Protein backbone atom coordinates (compact mmCIF):
# COMPACT_ATOMS: atom_id res chain seq x y z
CA UNK A 1 0.00 0.00 0.00
CA UNK A 2 1.27 3.42 -0.92
CA UNK A 3 1.54 6.26 1.52
CA UNK A 4 -0.64 8.75 -0.29
CA UNK A 5 -3.19 8.58 2.53
CA UNK A 6 -0.64 10.49 4.59
CA UNK A 7 -1.04 13.36 2.14
CA UNK A 8 -4.78 13.37 2.69
CA UNK A 9 -4.11 13.27 6.43
CA UNK A 10 -1.65 16.14 6.11
CA UNK A 11 -4.33 18.22 4.43
CA UNK A 12 -6.90 17.33 7.10
CA UNK A 13 -4.55 18.58 9.78
CA UNK A 14 -3.71 21.76 7.86
CA UNK A 15 -7.40 22.51 7.76
CA UNK A 16 -7.81 21.65 11.43
CA UNK A 17 -5.27 24.23 12.59
CA UNK A 18 -5.92 26.81 9.87
CA UNK A 19 -9.39 27.88 10.92
CA UNK A 20 -8.49 29.52 14.20
CA UNK A 21 -12.06 30.17 15.24
CA UNK A 22 -13.12 26.62 14.61
CA UNK A 23 -10.04 25.25 16.33
CA UNK A 24 -10.68 27.43 19.35
CA UNK A 25 -14.31 26.32 19.55
CA UNK A 26 -13.35 22.68 19.11
CA UNK A 27 -10.97 22.87 22.02
CA UNK A 28 -12.96 25.09 24.35
CA UNK A 29 -16.44 23.69 23.88
CA UNK A 30 -15.90 20.33 25.63
CA UNK A 31 -14.04 22.07 28.42
CA UNK A 32 -16.96 24.43 28.85
CA UNK A 33 -19.30 21.53 28.99
CA UNK A 34 -17.34 19.86 31.69
CA UNK A 35 -17.08 23.12 33.58
CA UNK A 36 -20.70 24.30 33.39
CA UNK A 37 -22.78 21.17 33.04
CA UNK A 38 -20.44 19.11 35.19
CA UNK A 39 -20.24 21.49 38.07
CA UNK A 40 -23.92 22.43 37.94
CA UNK A 41 -25.06 18.82 37.97
CA UNK A 42 -22.50 17.82 40.54
CA UNK A 43 -23.70 20.43 42.99
CA UNK A 44 -27.24 19.14 42.49
CA UNK A 45 -26.57 15.46 42.74
CA UNK A 46 -24.06 15.60 45.54
CA UNK A 47 -26.54 17.54 47.70
CA UNK A 48 -28.90 14.64 47.34
CA UNK A 49 -26.24 12.04 47.68
CA UNK A 50 -27.52 11.00 51.14
CA UNK A 51 -30.34 9.23 49.42
CA UNK A 52 -28.05 7.49 46.99
CA UNK A 53 -27.04 4.15 48.44
CA UNK A 54 -23.40 3.28 48.54
CA UNK A 55 -21.90 -0.10 49.10
CA UNK A 56 -19.60 -0.31 52.13
CA UNK A 57 -15.99 -0.88 51.16
CA UNK A 58 -16.57 0.16 47.55
CA UNK A 59 -15.25 3.46 46.21
CA UNK A 60 -18.00 6.03 45.74
CA UNK A 61 -17.43 8.25 42.73
CA UNK A 62 -18.73 11.83 42.65
CA UNK A 63 -20.81 13.00 39.72
CA UNK A 64 -18.16 15.23 38.09
CA UNK A 65 -15.79 12.29 37.90
CA UNK A 66 -18.58 10.03 36.67
CA UNK A 67 -19.67 12.32 33.88
CA UNK A 68 -16.12 13.33 32.84
CA UNK A 69 -15.81 9.95 31.17
CA UNK A 70 -19.10 10.66 29.39
CA UNK A 71 -17.99 14.08 28.21
CA UNK A 72 -14.77 12.62 26.81
CA UNK A 73 -16.78 10.03 24.90
CA UNK A 74 -19.35 12.51 23.62
CA UNK A 75 -16.63 14.85 22.41
CA UNK A 76 -15.13 12.06 20.33
CA UNK A 77 -18.63 11.32 19.03
CA UNK A 78 -19.35 14.88 17.90
CA UNK A 79 -15.94 15.46 16.39
CA UNK A 80 -16.17 12.36 14.26
CA UNK A 81 -19.85 12.48 13.36
CA UNK A 82 -19.24 15.86 11.79
CA UNK A 83 -15.71 15.01 10.65
CA UNK A 84 -16.82 13.68 7.27
CA UNK A 85 -18.61 16.89 6.46
CA UNK A 86 -15.50 18.31 4.83
CA UNK A 87 -15.80 15.66 2.13
CA UNK A 88 -19.16 17.02 1.15
CA UNK A 89 -17.55 20.42 0.68
CA UNK A 90 -14.78 18.83 -1.35
CA UNK A 91 -17.36 17.16 -3.54
CA UNK A 92 -19.30 20.30 -4.27
CA UNK A 93 -16.77 23.08 -4.07
CA UNK A 94 -13.40 21.50 -3.61
CA UNK A 95 -10.81 19.05 -4.71
CA UNK A 96 -12.67 15.75 -4.62
CA UNK A 97 -12.51 15.70 -8.44
CA UNK A 98 -8.77 16.12 -8.33
CA UNK A 99 -8.40 13.29 -5.82
CA UNK A 100 -10.66 10.93 -7.75
CA UNK A 101 -8.92 11.70 -11.04
CA UNK A 102 -5.53 10.89 -9.51
CA UNK A 103 -4.05 7.40 -9.54
CA UNK A 104 -4.35 7.29 -5.74
CA UNK A 105 -6.85 4.54 -4.80
CA UNK A 106 -9.92 6.18 -3.35
CA UNK A 107 -9.76 4.29 -0.06
CA UNK A 108 -6.68 6.38 0.72
CA UNK A 109 -9.02 9.33 1.11
CA UNK A 110 -11.03 7.34 3.61
CA UNK A 111 -7.97 6.31 5.60
CA UNK A 112 -6.49 9.80 5.54
CA UNK A 113 -9.72 11.37 6.73
CA UNK A 114 -10.11 8.61 9.31
CA UNK A 115 -6.64 9.27 10.72
CA UNK A 116 -7.50 12.95 10.83
CA UNK A 117 -10.67 12.26 12.81
CA UNK A 118 -8.86 10.03 15.29
CA UNK A 119 -6.12 12.62 15.77
CA UNK A 120 -8.64 15.38 16.43
CA UNK A 121 -10.45 13.16 18.94
CA UNK A 122 -7.16 12.39 20.68
CA UNK A 123 -6.28 16.05 20.98
CA UNK A 124 -9.69 17.01 22.34
CA UNK A 125 -10.01 14.06 24.71
CA UNK A 126 -6.49 14.65 25.97
CA UNK A 127 -7.29 18.27 26.70
CA UNK A 128 -10.51 17.40 28.53
CA UNK A 129 -8.65 14.84 30.55
CA UNK A 130 -6.08 17.40 31.66
CA UNK A 131 -8.69 20.08 32.24
CA UNK A 132 -10.86 17.63 34.18
CA UNK A 133 -8.01 16.64 36.46
CA UNK A 134 -7.40 20.31 37.16
CA UNK A 135 -11.09 20.82 37.96
CA UNK A 136 -11.01 17.97 40.45
CA UNK A 137 -12.01 14.90 38.47
CA UNK A 138 -10.75 11.94 40.49
CA UNK A 139 -9.43 9.62 37.80
CA UNK A 140 -6.67 7.09 38.37
CA UNK A 141 -7.15 7.22 42.15
CA UNK A 142 -4.58 5.08 43.93
CA UNK A 143 -2.98 4.00 40.64
CA UNK A 144 0.77 3.55 40.42
CA UNK A 145 2.62 5.41 37.68
CA UNK A 146 2.69 2.31 35.52
CA UNK A 147 -1.00 1.61 36.10
CA UNK A 148 -1.82 5.19 35.13
CA UNK A 149 0.12 4.87 31.89
CA UNK A 150 -1.64 1.60 31.09
CA UNK A 151 -5.00 3.20 31.88
CA UNK A 152 -4.32 6.14 29.57
CA UNK A 153 -3.21 3.83 26.77
CA UNK A 154 -6.39 1.80 27.31
CA UNK A 155 -8.61 4.88 27.17
CA UNK A 156 -7.01 6.06 23.96
CA UNK A 157 -7.26 2.64 22.38
CA UNK A 158 -11.02 2.75 22.98
CA UNK A 159 -11.25 6.32 21.69
CA UNK A 160 -9.31 5.35 18.59
CA UNK A 161 -11.58 2.50 17.52
CA UNK A 162 -14.74 4.39 18.40
CA UNK A 163 -13.62 7.53 16.52
CA UNK A 164 -12.61 5.53 13.47
CA UNK A 165 -16.06 3.94 13.45
CA UNK A 166 -17.89 7.23 13.49
CA UNK A 167 -15.61 9.05 11.08
CA UNK A 168 -16.06 6.23 8.56
CA UNK A 169 -19.82 6.42 9.04
CA UNK A 170 -19.84 10.14 8.49
CA UNK A 171 -17.42 9.97 5.54
CA UNK A 172 -19.46 7.23 3.88
CA UNK A 173 -22.65 9.24 4.28
CA UNK A 174 -21.01 12.38 2.96
CA UNK A 175 -19.91 10.51 -0.17
CA UNK A 176 -23.33 9.05 -0.80
CA UNK A 177 -25.53 12.00 -0.07
CA UNK A 178 -25.96 14.96 -2.38
CA UNK A 179 -26.81 17.88 -0.17
CA UNK A 180 -25.27 19.45 2.85
CA UNK A 181 -28.63 19.88 4.50
CA UNK A 182 -29.58 16.22 4.44
CA UNK A 183 -26.33 15.05 5.99
CA UNK A 184 -26.51 17.68 8.66
CA UNK A 185 -30.08 16.73 9.43
CA UNK A 186 -29.11 13.07 9.63
CA UNK A 187 -26.24 13.81 12.01
CA UNK A 188 -28.37 15.92 14.26
CA UNK A 189 -30.99 13.21 14.24
CA UNK A 190 -28.37 10.66 15.27
CA UNK A 191 -26.71 12.75 17.94
CA UNK A 192 -29.50 13.04 20.47
CA UNK A 193 -30.55 9.37 20.67
CA UNK A 194 -26.91 8.30 20.77
CA UNK A 195 -26.26 10.66 23.66
CA UNK A 196 -29.35 10.03 25.74
CA UNK A 197 -29.63 6.30 25.28
CA UNK A 198 -26.06 5.86 26.49
CA UNK A 199 -24.57 5.72 29.95
CA UNK A 200 -22.52 8.87 29.37
CA UNK A 201 -24.40 11.13 31.77
CA UNK A 202 -26.36 8.72 33.96
CA UNK A 203 -26.76 5.08 34.78
CA UNK A 204 -28.81 2.97 32.42
CA UNK A 205 -29.65 0.30 35.00
CA UNK A 206 -33.09 1.71 35.76
CA UNK A 207 -34.00 2.28 32.07
CA UNK A 208 -37.12 0.49 30.82
CA UNK A 209 -36.22 -2.62 28.88
CA UNK A 210 -36.70 -1.15 25.40
CA UNK A 211 -34.39 1.73 26.18
CA UNK A 212 -31.86 -0.66 27.67
CA UNK A 213 -31.95 -2.60 24.42
CA UNK A 214 -31.21 0.54 22.45
CA UNK A 215 -28.47 1.40 24.89
CA UNK A 216 -26.92 -2.01 24.43
CA UNK A 217 -26.44 -1.47 20.69
CA UNK A 218 -25.17 2.06 21.17
CA UNK A 219 -21.42 2.25 20.58
CA UNK A 220 -21.21 5.22 22.94
CA UNK A 221 -22.18 2.96 25.84
CA UNK A 222 -19.26 0.66 25.12
CA UNK A 223 -16.81 3.50 24.84
CA UNK A 224 -17.95 4.96 28.16
CA UNK A 225 -17.63 1.53 29.77
CA UNK A 226 -14.07 1.31 28.53
CA UNK A 227 -13.11 4.76 29.74
CA UNK A 228 -14.65 4.22 33.19
CA UNK A 229 -12.99 0.87 33.57
CA UNK A 230 -9.56 2.29 32.84
CA UNK A 231 -10.05 5.56 34.74
CA UNK A 232 -11.98 4.37 37.81
CA UNK A 233 -11.20 0.69 38.16
CA UNK A 234 -13.46 -2.33 38.05
CA UNK A 235 -15.51 -1.74 41.18
CA UNK A 236 -17.15 1.53 42.21
CA UNK A 237 -20.50 3.15 42.90
CA UNK A 238 -21.84 6.29 41.31
CA UNK A 239 -25.31 7.83 41.40
CA UNK A 240 -26.60 4.95 43.42
CA UNK A 241 -25.46 2.30 40.99
CA UNK A 242 -22.85 -0.29 41.76
CA UNK A 243 -20.52 -0.77 38.79
CA UNK A 244 -18.52 -3.95 38.56
CA UNK A 245 -16.58 -4.64 35.41
CA UNK A 246 -14.71 -7.81 34.65
CA UNK A 247 -11.85 -8.01 32.16
CA UNK A 248 -14.23 -10.00 29.98
CA UNK A 249 -16.83 -7.19 29.96
CA UNK A 250 -14.24 -4.75 28.81
CA UNK A 251 -12.79 -7.06 26.18
CA UNK A 252 -16.33 -7.55 24.90
CA UNK A 253 -16.91 -3.78 24.78
CA UNK A 254 -13.73 -3.41 22.77
CA UNK A 255 -14.77 -6.16 20.38
CA UNK A 256 -18.19 -4.52 19.90
CA UNK A 257 -16.45 -1.28 18.97
CA UNK A 258 -14.12 -3.13 16.61
CA UNK A 259 -17.09 -4.72 14.88
CA UNK A 260 -18.80 -1.34 14.64
CA UNK A 261 -15.69 0.23 13.12
CA UNK A 262 -15.34 -2.73 10.77
CA UNK A 263 -18.89 -2.34 9.49
CA UNK A 264 -18.60 1.40 8.96
CA UNK A 265 -15.23 0.85 7.27
CA UNK A 266 -16.88 -1.41 4.71
CA UNK A 267 -19.75 1.04 4.31
CA UNK A 268 -17.34 3.91 3.61
CA UNK A 269 -15.08 1.75 1.45
CA UNK A 270 -17.98 0.97 -0.83
CA UNK A 271 -19.09 4.58 -0.92
CA UNK A 272 -15.61 5.66 -1.99
CA UNK A 273 -15.17 2.90 -4.52
CA UNK A 274 -18.26 3.96 -6.42
CA UNK A 275 -17.80 7.68 -5.85
CA UNK A 276 -18.06 9.81 -8.93
CA UNK A 277 -17.95 13.53 -9.30
CA UNK A 278 -18.67 14.61 -12.84
Amino acid at each position, binding site marked *: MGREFLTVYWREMIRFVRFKGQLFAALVQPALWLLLFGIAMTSNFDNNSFSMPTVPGVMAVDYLTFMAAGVMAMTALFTCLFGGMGLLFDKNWGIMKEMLASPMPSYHIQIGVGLGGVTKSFIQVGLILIFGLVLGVKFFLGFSALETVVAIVGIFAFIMVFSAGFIFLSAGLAMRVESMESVQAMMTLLTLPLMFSSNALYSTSSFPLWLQTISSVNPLTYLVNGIRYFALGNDFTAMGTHYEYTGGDIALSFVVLLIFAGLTFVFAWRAFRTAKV*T
Partner: protein
Amino acid sequence: MSSAIIEVADLEHSFGDVKAVDKVSFTVEEGEIFSFLGPNGAGKSTTINVLTTQLPCQKGTVRVCGFDVRTARQAVKKSIGVVFQDEVLDRDMTVRETLEFHGRIYSMPKPERLAREKELIELVELGQKLNVRTKHLSGGMKRRLEIARGLMTRPRVLFLDEPTIGLDPQTRLKIWDYIKGINEEGTTIFLTTHYMDEADTLSDRIEIIDYGKIIATGTSESLKNTLGEDMIYLETGDDVKALKLAEAMSEVTEVKKTSKGLELILNSDGGKVMPKILRSIGKEGVDIISVRMKKPSLDDVFVHYTGREMRAESAENAFHRRRRH
Protein backbone atom coordinates in the same frame (compact mmCIF):
# COMPACT_ATOMS: atom_id res chain seq x y z
CA MET B 1 6.91 11.37 -37.77
CA SER B 2 3.96 11.48 -35.48
CA SER B 3 1.95 8.77 -33.79
CA ALA B 4 -1.44 8.57 -32.18
CA ILE B 5 -1.49 9.33 -28.46
CA ILE B 6 -5.26 9.04 -28.09
CA GLU B 7 -7.17 6.48 -30.11
CA VAL B 8 -10.94 6.32 -29.82
CA ALA B 9 -12.81 3.72 -31.81
CA ASP B 10 -16.58 3.27 -31.89
CA LEU B 11 -17.06 4.74 -28.45
CA GLU B 12 -20.64 4.57 -27.22
CA HIS B 13 -21.98 5.78 -23.91
CA SER B 14 -25.53 5.90 -22.63
CA PHE B 15 -27.17 7.30 -19.56
CA GLY B 16 -30.24 5.17 -19.10
CA ASP B 17 -31.84 5.15 -22.51
CA VAL B 18 -30.27 8.43 -23.56
CA LYS B 19 -27.34 7.86 -25.88
CA ALA B 20 -24.87 10.62 -25.11
CA VAL B 21 -22.07 9.34 -27.33
CA ASP B 22 -22.84 7.29 -30.42
CA LYS B 23 -20.04 5.43 -32.24
CA VAL B 24 -17.44 8.13 -31.97
CA SER B 25 -14.00 7.50 -33.46
CA PHE B 26 -11.04 9.83 -33.68
CA THR B 27 -7.34 9.98 -33.00
CA VAL B 28 -5.14 12.63 -31.48
CA GLU B 29 -1.54 12.78 -32.67
CA GLU B 30 1.28 13.19 -30.21
CA GLY B 31 2.40 16.80 -29.92
CA GLU B 32 -0.63 18.49 -31.39
CA ILE B 33 -3.23 20.80 -29.94
CA PHE B 34 -6.51 19.07 -30.56
CA SER B 35 -9.81 20.88 -30.14
CA PHE B 36 -12.96 19.02 -29.38
CA LEU B 37 -15.92 21.26 -30.05
CA GLY B 38 -19.64 20.92 -29.78
CA PRO B 39 -22.73 22.61 -28.37
CA ASN B 40 -23.88 21.95 -24.80
CA GLY B 41 -25.21 18.45 -24.50
CA ALA B 42 -23.45 17.21 -27.63
CA GLY B 43 -21.51 14.49 -25.83
CA LYS B 44 -18.31 16.43 -25.28
CA SER B 45 -18.07 16.09 -21.52
CA THR B 46 -19.09 12.45 -21.58
CA THR B 47 -16.32 11.70 -24.06
CA ILE B 48 -13.73 13.55 -21.98
CA ASN B 49 -14.90 11.80 -18.85
CA VAL B 50 -14.38 8.44 -20.51
CA LEU B 51 -10.96 9.48 -21.83
CA THR B 52 -9.86 10.62 -18.36
CA THR B 53 -11.37 7.47 -16.76
CA GLN B 54 -13.94 9.41 -14.77
CA LEU B 55 -16.64 7.37 -16.49
CA PRO B 56 -16.34 3.73 -17.47
CA CYS B 57 -15.90 2.84 -21.15
CA GLN B 58 -19.19 1.14 -21.94
CA LYS B 59 -18.67 0.21 -25.58
CA GLY B 60 -15.83 0.65 -28.05
CA THR B 61 -12.16 1.04 -27.34
CA VAL B 62 -10.26 3.98 -25.97
CA ARG B 63 -6.49 4.04 -25.68
CA VAL B 64 -4.70 6.92 -24.06
CA CYS B 65 -0.90 7.02 -24.20
CA GLY B 66 -1.02 3.42 -25.32
CA PHE B 67 -3.08 2.25 -22.34
CA ASP B 68 -6.57 0.87 -22.57
CA VAL B 69 -8.86 2.88 -20.26
CA ARG B 70 -10.67 -0.33 -19.38
CA THR B 71 -7.76 -2.48 -18.35
CA ALA B 72 -5.11 0.06 -17.40
CA ARG B 73 -7.03 2.78 -15.64
CA GLN B 74 -4.22 3.63 -13.21
CA ALA B 75 -1.65 3.88 -16.00
CA VAL B 76 -3.93 6.23 -17.92
CA LYS B 77 -4.46 8.38 -14.85
CA LYS B 78 -0.71 8.57 -14.27
CA SER B 79 0.10 9.69 -17.78
CA ILE B 80 -2.44 12.48 -18.16
CA GLY B 81 -3.10 15.85 -16.57
CA VAL B 82 -6.58 17.28 -16.23
CA VAL B 83 -7.74 20.86 -15.81
CA PHE B 84 -11.43 20.71 -15.01
CA GLN B 85 -14.04 23.02 -16.38
CA ASP B 86 -15.14 24.30 -12.99
CA GLU B 87 -12.83 25.50 -10.28
CA VAL B 88 -11.36 22.55 -8.40
CA LEU B 89 -9.29 24.14 -5.67
CA ASP B 90 -9.20 24.01 -1.90
CA ARG B 91 -9.91 27.62 -1.09
CA ASP B 92 -8.05 27.41 2.17
CA MET B 93 -4.84 25.88 0.92
CA THR B 94 -2.01 28.05 -0.30
CA VAL B 95 -0.61 28.00 -3.82
CA ARG B 96 2.40 26.01 -2.68
CA GLU B 97 0.27 23.53 -0.73
CA THR B 98 -2.00 23.03 -3.72
CA LEU B 99 0.93 21.92 -5.86
CA GLU B 100 2.50 19.91 -3.05
CA PHE B 101 -0.77 18.05 -2.42
CA HIS B 102 -1.08 17.18 -6.08
CA GLY B 103 2.51 15.97 -6.42
CA ARG B 104 2.14 13.86 -3.31
CA ILE B 105 -1.11 12.14 -4.24
CA TYR B 106 0.57 11.28 -7.55
CA SER B 107 3.45 9.75 -5.55
CA MET B 108 6.12 12.07 -6.93
CA PRO B 109 9.51 11.70 -5.25
CA LYS B 110 10.21 14.75 -3.10
CA PRO B 111 13.25 16.22 -4.92
CA GLU B 112 11.50 15.94 -8.26
CA ARG B 113 8.34 17.43 -6.81
CA LEU B 114 10.13 20.43 -5.35
CA ALA B 115 12.01 21.09 -8.59
CA ARG B 116 8.81 20.85 -10.60
CA GLU B 117 6.93 23.15 -8.20
CA LYS B 118 9.60 25.78 -8.68
CA GLU B 119 9.60 25.43 -12.45
CA LEU B 120 5.84 25.67 -12.80
CA ILE B 121 5.45 28.55 -10.39
CA GLU B 122 7.85 30.45 -12.63
CA LEU B 123 6.03 29.38 -15.77
CA VAL B 124 2.65 30.63 -14.59
CA GLU B 125 4.18 33.60 -12.78
CA LEU B 126 2.74 32.98 -9.35
CA GLY B 127 6.03 33.39 -7.47
CA GLN B 128 4.64 36.31 -5.45
CA LYS B 129 1.63 34.28 -4.35
CA LEU B 130 3.28 31.12 -3.04
CA ASN B 131 1.91 31.41 0.47
CA VAL B 132 -1.40 32.99 -0.42
CA ARG B 133 -4.57 30.95 0.01
CA THR B 134 -6.26 30.21 -3.28
CA LYS B 135 -9.42 32.05 -2.29
CA HIS B 136 -7.47 35.30 -2.44
CA LEU B 137 -6.35 34.74 -6.04
CA SER B 138 -8.02 36.34 -9.06
CA GLY B 139 -9.90 34.18 -11.55
CA GLY B 140 -6.98 34.19 -13.96
CA MET B 141 -4.47 33.28 -11.27
CA LYS B 142 -6.65 30.38 -10.14
CA ARG B 143 -6.75 29.11 -13.70
CA ARG B 144 -2.99 29.45 -14.03
CA LEU B 145 -2.54 27.54 -10.79
CA GLU B 146 -4.83 24.78 -12.00
CA ILE B 147 -2.89 24.55 -15.26
CA ALA B 148 0.38 24.39 -13.34
CA ARG B 149 -1.08 21.68 -11.15
CA GLY B 150 -2.17 19.69 -14.20
CA LEU B 151 1.44 19.82 -15.42
CA MET B 152 3.07 18.78 -12.11
CA THR B 153 3.56 15.18 -13.14
CA ARG B 154 4.79 15.99 -16.66
CA PRO B 155 1.78 14.38 -18.31
CA ARG B 156 2.06 13.41 -21.97
CA VAL B 157 -1.45 14.73 -22.57
CA LEU B 158 -3.05 17.68 -20.84
CA PHE B 159 -6.85 17.85 -20.92
CA LEU B 160 -8.10 21.42 -20.77
CA ASP B 161 -11.85 21.73 -20.39
CA GLU B 162 -12.92 25.28 -21.19
CA PRO B 163 -9.69 26.79 -19.87
CA THR B 164 -10.61 30.44 -20.33
CA ILE B 165 -14.29 30.44 -19.47
CA GLY B 166 -15.24 33.60 -17.62
CA LEU B 167 -11.86 35.30 -17.95
CA ASP B 168 -11.13 38.79 -19.24
CA PRO B 169 -9.52 39.19 -22.70
CA GLN B 170 -6.03 40.00 -21.40
CA THR B 171 -6.03 36.97 -19.16
CA ARG B 172 -7.25 34.79 -21.99
CA LEU B 173 -4.36 35.90 -24.20
CA LYS B 174 -1.97 35.12 -21.38
CA ILE B 175 -3.43 31.66 -20.88
CA TRP B 176 -3.18 31.02 -24.62
CA ASP B 177 0.52 31.87 -24.41
CA TYR B 178 0.99 29.32 -21.64
CA ILE B 179 -0.89 26.69 -23.58
CA LYS B 180 1.23 27.29 -26.68
CA GLY B 181 4.38 27.24 -24.60
CA ILE B 182 3.43 23.98 -22.91
CA ASN B 183 2.63 22.45 -26.28
CA GLU B 184 5.95 23.59 -27.73
CA GLU B 185 7.68 21.70 -24.98
CA GLY B 186 6.05 18.54 -26.25
CA THR B 187 2.84 18.12 -24.27
CA THR B 188 -0.15 17.11 -26.33
CA ILE B 189 -3.16 19.30 -25.58
CA PHE B 190 -6.75 18.10 -25.66
CA LEU B 191 -8.87 21.22 -25.56
CA THR B 192 -12.56 21.86 -25.36
CA THR B 193 -13.95 25.34 -25.65
CA HIS B 194 -16.98 27.32 -26.63
CA TYR B 195 -14.83 30.16 -27.90
CA MET B 196 -14.22 29.63 -31.58
CA ASP B 197 -11.47 32.23 -31.69
CA GLU B 198 -9.69 30.19 -29.06
CA ALA B 199 -9.97 26.98 -31.05
CA ASP B 200 -8.94 28.86 -34.20
CA THR B 201 -5.85 30.40 -32.62
CA LEU B 202 -4.63 27.37 -30.76
CA SER B 203 -5.55 24.17 -32.48
CA ASP B 204 -3.75 22.10 -35.03
CA ARG B 205 -6.81 19.99 -35.58
CA ILE B 206 -10.51 20.21 -34.72
CA GLU B 207 -13.34 17.76 -34.35
CA ILE B 208 -16.92 18.89 -33.97
CA ILE B 209 -19.34 16.61 -32.18
CA ASP B 210 -23.11 16.95 -32.06
CA TYR B 211 -25.86 14.63 -30.93
CA GLY B 212 -23.20 12.13 -29.92
CA LYS B 213 -21.61 11.89 -33.36
CA ILE B 214 -18.56 13.47 -34.95
CA ILE B 215 -19.92 15.73 -37.68
CA ALA B 216 -16.85 17.53 -38.91
CA THR B 217 -13.12 17.13 -38.68
CA GLY B 218 -10.06 18.89 -40.03
CA THR B 219 -7.81 21.86 -39.50
CA SER B 220 -9.35 25.23 -38.86
CA GLU B 221 -8.44 26.19 -42.48
CA SER B 222 -9.84 23.09 -44.10
CA LEU B 223 -13.09 23.37 -42.14
CA LYS B 224 -13.51 26.96 -43.25
CA ASN B 225 -12.77 25.94 -46.81
CA THR B 226 -15.43 23.25 -46.77
CA LEU B 227 -17.86 26.02 -46.06
CA GLY B 228 -16.86 27.98 -49.16
CA GLU B 229 -14.45 30.62 -50.29
CA ASP B 230 -16.27 33.71 -49.12
CA MET B 231 -19.50 34.75 -47.53
CA ILE B 232 -21.72 37.64 -48.47
CA TYR B 233 -24.25 39.30 -46.23
CA LEU B 234 -27.00 41.02 -48.14
CA GLU B 235 -29.79 43.31 -47.06
CA THR B 236 -32.37 43.80 -49.76
CA GLY B 237 -35.77 45.31 -50.28
CA ASP B 238 -37.27 41.89 -50.96
CA ASP B 239 -35.40 39.08 -49.27
CA VAL B 240 -37.78 36.39 -50.45
CA LYS B 241 -37.27 37.17 -54.07
CA ALA B 242 -33.54 37.72 -53.65
CA LEU B 243 -33.23 34.37 -51.92
CA LYS B 244 -34.80 32.59 -54.87
CA LEU B 245 -32.56 34.38 -57.33
CA ALA B 246 -29.41 33.67 -55.35
CA GLU B 247 -30.25 30.01 -54.98
CA ALA B 248 -30.34 29.61 -58.73
CA MET B 249 -26.78 30.87 -59.21
CA SER B 250 -24.00 28.37 -59.75
CA GLU B 251 -21.47 30.36 -57.70
CA VAL B 252 -23.65 30.19 -54.60
CA THR B 253 -23.51 26.96 -52.63
CA GLU B 254 -25.86 27.92 -49.86
CA VAL B 255 -28.27 30.70 -48.98
CA LYS B 256 -29.68 31.29 -45.55
CA LYS B 257 -32.22 33.78 -44.32
CA THR B 258 -31.01 35.47 -41.15
CA SER B 259 -32.70 38.01 -38.94
CA LYS B 260 -31.12 40.90 -40.83
CA GLY B 261 -31.12 39.64 -44.38
CA LEU B 262 -29.44 36.92 -46.40
CA GLU B 263 -26.23 35.00 -45.93
CA LEU B 264 -24.67 33.60 -49.10
CA ILE B 265 -21.88 31.08 -49.11
CA LEU B 266 -19.81 31.19 -52.31
CA ASN B 267 -17.73 28.52 -53.98
CA SER B 268 -15.39 30.93 -55.70
CA ASP B 269 -13.57 34.19 -55.09
CA GLY B 270 -16.13 36.65 -53.78
CA GLY B 271 -14.32 39.70 -55.13
CA LYS B 272 -14.92 38.44 -58.62
CA VAL B 273 -18.43 37.03 -58.41
CA MET B 274 -20.03 39.63 -56.17
CA PRO B 275 -20.64 42.26 -58.94
CA LYS B 276 -22.30 39.61 -61.05
CA ILE B 277 -24.55 38.48 -58.21
CA LEU B 278 -25.55 42.03 -57.32
CA ARG B 279 -26.22 42.88 -60.93
CA SER B 280 -28.52 39.93 -61.52
CA ILE B 281 -30.47 40.57 -58.34
CA GLY B 282 -30.78 44.28 -59.17
CA LYS B 283 -31.92 43.46 -62.70
CA GLU B 284 -35.00 41.75 -61.27
CA GLY B 285 -36.00 44.96 -59.52
CA VAL B 286 -34.89 44.05 -55.99
CA ASP B 287 -33.32 46.95 -54.08
CA ILE B 288 -30.01 46.23 -52.48
CA ILE B 289 -29.68 48.09 -49.19
CA SER B 290 -26.31 46.89 -47.97
CA VAL B 291 -23.59 44.38 -48.82
CA ARG B 292 -20.78 42.96 -46.72
CA MET B 293 -18.31 40.28 -47.65
CA LYS B 294 -16.06 38.23 -45.38
CA LYS B 295 -14.12 35.03 -45.13
CA PRO B 296 -15.95 32.28 -43.21
CA SER B 297 -14.84 32.15 -39.59
CA LEU B 298 -14.77 29.13 -37.34
CA ASP B 299 -17.94 30.52 -35.78
CA ASP B 300 -19.63 30.20 -39.15
CA VAL B 301 -18.34 26.67 -39.49
CA PHE B 302 -19.64 25.76 -36.06
CA VAL B 303 -23.07 27.26 -36.63
CA HIS B 304 -23.22 25.73 -40.10
CA TYR B 305 -22.70 22.24 -38.72
CA THR B 306 -24.58 22.43 -35.46
CA GLY B 307 -27.43 24.78 -36.30
CA ARG B 308 -28.54 27.83 -34.42
CA GLU B 309 -30.73 26.58 -31.67
CA MET B 310 -29.62 26.96 -28.09
CA ARG B 311 -28.72 23.85 -26.14
CA ALA B 312 -29.41 23.93 -22.49
CA GLU B 313 -28.05 20.83 -20.85
CA SER B 314 -26.13 17.66 -21.33
CA ALA B 315 -27.71 14.24 -21.58
CA GLU B 316 -25.86 13.24 -18.46
CA ASN B 317 -27.26 16.06 -16.35
CA ALA B 318 -30.73 15.40 -17.64
CA PHE B 319 -30.29 11.74 -16.80
CA HIS B 320 -29.13 12.42 -13.25
CA ARG B 321 -31.86 14.88 -12.62
CA ARG B 322 -34.45 12.45 -13.84
CA ARG B 323 -33.06 9.75 -11.63
CA ARG B 324 -33.12 11.93 -8.58
CA HIS B 325 -36.78 12.75 -8.95
